[in-house]
Each structure stands twice: as C-alpha cells, then as structure tokens.
C-alpha cells in the first residue's frame, strides 16, 4: 500500500467528495463522513512525510511501474503523468490535510443551520483533493488542472451562503481571479511544451535554456501565482473572499492560497534555479513584493471594522513574511557561503512561517466565526464584553493573537525570529519593515481584543453562551498546536521544515530521477 501513497492522497478525498452527495438530507451523517475522510488523510500525509524523510523523493507514475519506461518506438522522454513528492510537497500535504480535518470538525456545528450541506462537504473534500494534487504533482499540466479544481471548489464555497448577495460577489471575484491566473499558467505551460515537447517538471528543468520566451513564461507563472497567493498589489480578492466564506472553510482556503505560494517556490527553485544571474533578480522581486505585502496588508488591517476582514488583511501581511524569508534565500542561492550563513535559515523561517501562519490564522478566523455565530454580526462596533460569555473562544483568540504578533512562546515567534535575523544580513531595511509590521499586527489585535472581548457586558448579549463543542474542539486543537510549535520549534524545524528547505535548495535532486536523459 505504501508505494501507492501519493495516489491515495488525492484519491481518498476525491472518493469522499463523490460519496458525500449521496447522503442527501442526512446532514449529520455527511459531516461525520467528512471528518472521517479528512481524518484518514491526515494519517496518510504523516505516513507520506515519514516515507519521504527516510527514503528520499518518491516517484509515482500513473500507468507504469517505473518512470523510465519509454515509448515502444524508443522515443525517450517521460510521457506519463507523474507525482513527484519531496519533503516540501509532503510538508504542504500535512498542512492541507490537517486544516481540512480541523475545518470539517468546525463546520459540524458552524453551518448546521444552512441547507445543502452535502454539497458543502463534497466541495470541502474536493478543495482538499485539489490542494493535495497541486503540492504532490511533478507535471506542469497536472498542476494547472489541480489549480483549477481548487479554484472552482474554493469559489463555490466562498459563494456558499447564496442568500447573501455579497457572498456571490466574493465568489465571482475569486473565481475570475483564479481562472485568469490559471489560464495564464496554462499559457506558460504551453510555451514550455512548445519548446521542450514535454510537461514533466523535472525534464523541463533539466533542459530549460533561459531564452527570452522562457523568461516570459517565468514572468507569467510568477505573476499568476503571486496573484493567487495574495501578494500586494494583487491582493484585493483575499479580503473579499475570506470575509464571505463560512469560517469552517477558512482553514482549507488558506492552505489553497499557500499551495499557490508553494507553486511559486517550486517554479522559482526547481524550474529556474539553474539560471545564475537572474535568480538574484527573482529573489529581490520576491523580497520586495514581500515587504510591500506585509506593510500594506497590516496598515489596511488596522482600520477595518469587520472582524473577519481585519483578519484577512493580516493573512495578506503574513504572506509577506514568507515571501521575504524565501526571497532572501533565493537571492543567495548560488552563493554557497552566504547560503550556509543565512540563506538556509531565511528559507527555513519562510517555510516554517507557512505552517505557523496556517495554524494561527485559521485559529483566529475560527474565533471570528465563533463571534459571528454567537452575535450574528461581524461588525466590531456592535460587539463588546464577550469575554465572560465565551471564555474558551477568548483564550483561543489570545493564543492566536499572541502567536501572530510573534510573542514568545507561541509559534509565530520562532519563524519571525529567523526571518528578522536573516533578512538583516541581506538588507537591514527589510528587517525594519518586518518589525514595524509585527508591532502594528499586535496593535490591531489589541483593538479586536479590546472591542469584542473586553469592556462592560452588553445587555443585548445577556443570553448568549459559548459556542458548541465541535467548534471548541477545533479551536483548541489549533491553540494547542500553536503552543507546542512555539515551545519546541527546533523539533518541528528538524522534522518538517529543514527537510523541506533542503528539498528546495538541492533542486538537482528533484531533477535526477530515473536517469532518463
């Protein structure tokens, strides 16, 4: 079974997604089904990580048992669809499955009052399948297909509350943005196919010659994935979509965003790492985009009055940290001394920040969803004094807010610490912006905390009570992870993050499968 793990990772959520509509009106049954399927896929992804760390890159070929099998006529190129799983892909797969699982638990009570839940859960699992496909595949066209699957499922979920006009508006915005981005990705894939006659990532990376057409393709891929991961100034869809989506979908949608970030890293490292001069240029573009993203994101967050919108702007600003960390690493990738000195740690900071951010931002968006569930509004001006009514939500919120602001001993601290130290070595100005952003982040969460949870108890919330148990369980899982990751960052770094970073740095390893010329 273990050798079919990469295919199972995608097949299982797909199977779950297509079974889900059969439950029809049995909403309880379908939600338990979704929790069951996503729970199993968490186990599978952990197995996959273990397998990758012990045995190196896994090649999984669809329709053949070896990647080296060629056409009968002897034409020696990889023609089959392949999944190529390295530690970075497995790392993202863990994030995706974990967040889908938590989202499914949370949804159990969060969307209880809505109808059409069998489709909701089907889409949730479809979204998971799309993300997993994106992060595991080793084939460019396959990447496009899964990007579209994730985009369609995600935007359908954004528009799930179709009795609200705003939800449909956010849905069409997300769909438009993601389909245009995916079409441009397909165009770039077409450019590669036209030149190299192949779609396999490793094969193209080996043969790519960095002529002008290739650079145009890189530009298209870069811009498309940057838009899909919400880099400023193409971030406008992020607050719109995250605000309107039901809070249980926020975690997988967040991972879908970072799957695009993963694709961006994959393209810049694996596909284009051999280009020596221009790589520093790509790294600088990434770092500068990162700084812009974090700063503009956080200043916009400060003035928001809608609690979920505020947190969505923080999602943008935190993406900036990841871009900055990995961008710094990319800038010095071809300078071994600098790479060993700070480049590797910068990338570790960036990659570690992905999973940290996914955890605490999901937690925060879930607490925002809990506030919405209890008060029926997302407007911070109308909330107040909820700390006594919802103690567990309050504690979860405090953990999340401390983590996102980078306070020790929560998980945001470790990764931000790495990013500050290393970006300082490249250019101190980058660090200054990163730190100011962190301060402003704390400031805006103090605002949320003061206005929603503190203050005198309001009369209109007299009869409100804490949210139901499944939502509490989902929030507590993530809060516990926040603290665990923060207390023992070195364990997580050694087991998950450094393998992933080394997989990105040693791009030659990714290219050298099978020995096919």
């Amino acid at each position, binding site marked *: 079974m273990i050798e079919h793990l990469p295919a199972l990772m995608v097949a299982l959520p797909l199977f779950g997604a297509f079974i889900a509509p059969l439950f029809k009106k049995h909403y309880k049954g379908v939600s338990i089904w979704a929790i069951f399927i996503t729970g199993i896929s968490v186990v599978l992804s952990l197995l996959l990580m273990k397998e990758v760390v012990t045995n190196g890159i896994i090649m999984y070929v669809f329709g053949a048992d070896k990647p080296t099998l060629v056409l009968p*006529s002897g034409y020696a190129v990889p*023609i089959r669809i392949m999944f190529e799983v390295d530690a970075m892909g497995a790392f993202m797969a863990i994030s995706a499955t974990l967040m889908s699982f938590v989202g499914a638990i949370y949804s159990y009570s969060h969307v209880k009052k809505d109808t059409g839940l069998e489709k909701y859960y089907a889409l949730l699992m479809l979204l998971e399948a799309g993300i997993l496909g994106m992060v595991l595949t080793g084939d460019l*066209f396959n990447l*496009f*297909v899964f990007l*579209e699957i994730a*985009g*369609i499922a995600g*935007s*359908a979920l954004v*528009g799930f509350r*179709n009795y*609200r*006009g*705003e939800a*449909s*508006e*956010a*849905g*069409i*915005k997300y*769909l*438009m943005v993601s*389909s*245009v981005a995916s*079409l441009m990705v*397909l*165009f770039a894939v*077409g450019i590669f*196919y*036209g030149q190299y*006659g192949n*779609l396999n990532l490793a094969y193209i990376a080996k043969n790519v010659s960095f002529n002008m057409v290739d650079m145009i393709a890189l530009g298209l891929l870069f811009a498309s994935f940057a838009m899909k991961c919400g880099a400023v100034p193409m971030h406008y869809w992020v*607050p*719109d979509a995250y*605000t*309107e989506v039901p809070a249980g979908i926020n975690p997988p949608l967040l991972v879908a965003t970072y799957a695009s970030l993963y694709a961006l890293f994959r393209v810049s490292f694996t596909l284009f790492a051999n280009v020596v001069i221009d790589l520093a240029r790509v790294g600088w573009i990434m770092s500068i985009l990162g700084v812009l993203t974090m700063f503009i994101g956080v200043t916009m967050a400060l003035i928001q009055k809608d609690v979920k919108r505020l947190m969505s702007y923080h999602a943008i600003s935190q993406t900036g940290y990841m871009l900055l960390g990995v961008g710094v690493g990319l800038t010095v990738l071809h300078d071994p001394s600098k790479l060993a000195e700070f480049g590797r740690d910068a990338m570790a900071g960036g990659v570690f920040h992905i999973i940290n951010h996914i955890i605490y931002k999901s937690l925060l968006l879930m607490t925002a969803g809990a506030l919405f569930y209890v008060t029926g509004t997302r407007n911070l001006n109308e909330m107040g004094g909820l700390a006594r009514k919802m103690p567990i939500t309050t504690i979860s919120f405090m953990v999340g807010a401390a983590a996102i602001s980078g306070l020790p001993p929560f998980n945001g601290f470790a990764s931000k610490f790495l990013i500050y130290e290393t970006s300082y070595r490249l250019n101190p100005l980058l660090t200054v912006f990163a730190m100011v952003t962190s301060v402003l982040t704390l400031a805006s969460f103090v605002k949320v905390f003061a206005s929603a949870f503190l203050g005198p108890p309001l009369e209109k919330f007299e009869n409100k009570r804490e949210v139901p148990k499944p939502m509490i369980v989902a929030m507590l899982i993530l809060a516990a992870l926040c603290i665990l990751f923060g207390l023992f960052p070195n364990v997580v770094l050694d087991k998950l993050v450094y393998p992933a970073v080394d997989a990105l740095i040693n791009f030659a390893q990714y290219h050298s499968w099978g020995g096919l010329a």
Partner: protein
Amino acid sequence: MNGSLFVNFPFIVVALLLALGFYTIGFKRNLIKVIIGVEILEGAVNMFIVALGYVKGGYAPIYTQAPQEAVGKMVLPTPQALTLTSIVIGVAVTALMLAFAVNIYRHYGTLDVTRVRRLRG
C-alpha cells in the same frame, strides 16, 4: 508570401484573442460581458496549445486504417488531450460564473460591475 507568416498565423490570432480577452475583461461594464472576456481568453489559450500540436509532415495518431507512410510519423496527441481537459474545465468555470451572475442580479438588481462592489476598502 513566404511560409513563415502562414505558419505563424495561428499565433498571431492567439495574440489578438488574448488582447481582445483582456480588453473585454478590463473595460466592459456588463458582468456577462466580463465573463465572455474570460471565455475569449480561454479560447486563445486553447488555440495556442492546439496550434503547438501541429507538426509539419506528421500524421494524426489514429491507428485504424492508417496509411503505410504514417508509420513512425504520428504525432503525440498530448496537446489535443490538454485542450480537451482545458475545455471541460472551462465549461465548469463558465457555468459557475454565470450562476454567480444570476445570483448577483437577484440580490443587487444590476449586472453593472461598477455597482456590484459592496466589498471594498
């Protein structure tokens, strides 16, 4: 007329369609027209891939009743397969976008994109 213009003709059309698609998305006010713009864009990309699949002197990879001289000269049908997949995905995207447009019309009473913008700031 030499051959190069003729060979490049599909790519010129692709460029025109891309420009037209982005123009339609960027400057039309009706939401349905914006969706049509995405469709034009998709047509451009599909056409690009199909045009790449043409090999001079190659034969279509249909094995039944293939002529004798086609042996060893058949093209890989990958671009056609890609285009089919992409068309199917495109249909799903369009259907979902139009469904959203219907719902937006129901709630906002308009399809003018300059007025369908409650989410901003």
